[in-house]
């Protein structure tokens, strides 16, 4: 399986994401520069955390206007699995691939510590290796992670089971304790916590590894077992 890890100017979790796919999961991964690259031919696309374009204007706003995000939308339409973590999630929101927006954390602080997440939907291609309602330990590292959407969007997210992860103890004020959501089609996941930083027990937790394993298992079921 071949993963693309998109690098924007200011991405800083791109190597961690690469390591998670290439080393921890043991599949092929490529770092893909945002300019002059082609997103065709990858089995999954990873948008890493960081501060693309220095978080100018709004986190993820400038990155969402680049050509690579236009290509990303095409790949999303084709059903390619896309995972956006932290700033990657913010880019997915700003580009309209996921609904809602990010506000500054309730307490205005940059927060960097482990949080307990509840797997609210384990029937996605990103979470099938988890148990329903499993509690996992994954670090957060953000200042703009206070997820917001209007009431009708929240109702729709709940009705369609699009809320994939919630915080057990909401650290940032996110509406509905939301830590991660998926699109209606089920191939685009955005989350603020960093599963790629929790892929080995020596990192403090390997609970994030199952997320990458889920992507792999689902890819195999689709393209290998079915072939």
């Amino acid at each position, binding site marked *: 399986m071949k993963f693309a890890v998109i690098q924007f100017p200011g991405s800083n979790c791109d190597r961690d994401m690469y390591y998670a796919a290439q080393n921890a999961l043991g599949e092929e991964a490529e770092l893909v520069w945002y300019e002059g690259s082609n997103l065709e031919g990858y089995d999954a696309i990873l948008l890493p955390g960081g501060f693309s374009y220095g978080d100018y204007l709004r986190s993820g706003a400038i990155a969402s206007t680049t050509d690579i995000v236009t290509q990303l939308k095409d790949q999303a339409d084709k059903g390619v699995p896309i995972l956006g973590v932290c700033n990657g999630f913010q880019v997915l929101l*700003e580009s309209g691939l996921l609904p809602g*927006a990010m506000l500054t954390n*309730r307490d205005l602080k940059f927060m960097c510590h482990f949080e307990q997440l509840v797997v609210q939907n384990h029937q996605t291609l990103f979470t099938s290796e988890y148990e329903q309602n499993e509690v996992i330990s994954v670090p957060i590292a953000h200042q703009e992670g206070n997820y*917001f959407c209007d009431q009708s969007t929240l109702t729709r997210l709940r009705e369609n089971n699009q809320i994939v992860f919630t915080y057990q103890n909401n650290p940032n004020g996110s509406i509905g304790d939301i830590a991660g959501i998926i699109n209606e089609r089920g191939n685009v996941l955005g989350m603020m916590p960093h599963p790629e930083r929790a892929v080995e027990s020596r990192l403090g937790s390997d609970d994030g590894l199952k997320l990458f394993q889920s992507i792999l298992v689902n890819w195999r079921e689709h393209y290998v077992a079915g072939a």
Partner: protein
Amino acid sequence: MKLVKVHVTLKEGVLDPQGKAIQGSLSRLGYDHVQEVRVGKYLELKVEDDQHIEQQIEEMCRTLLANPVIENYEYTVEEGVTS
């Protein structure tokens, strides 16, 4: 040349922790009659004359300058200084 002044503000009902912190500071300075502070952005754009300028600014606000999920925007188009 036109001078476009854009104000981007948080929608009503959207939490503004920064505004709250500033209000708290003002209160500590003795200005405790300030009931609420909301923080927004102000942008100035120098734009070449174009008959569709209003429509273009509207589009720029919706697609990039503001995020309609959380923000409102207002703008004025004025005669700019030609340099």
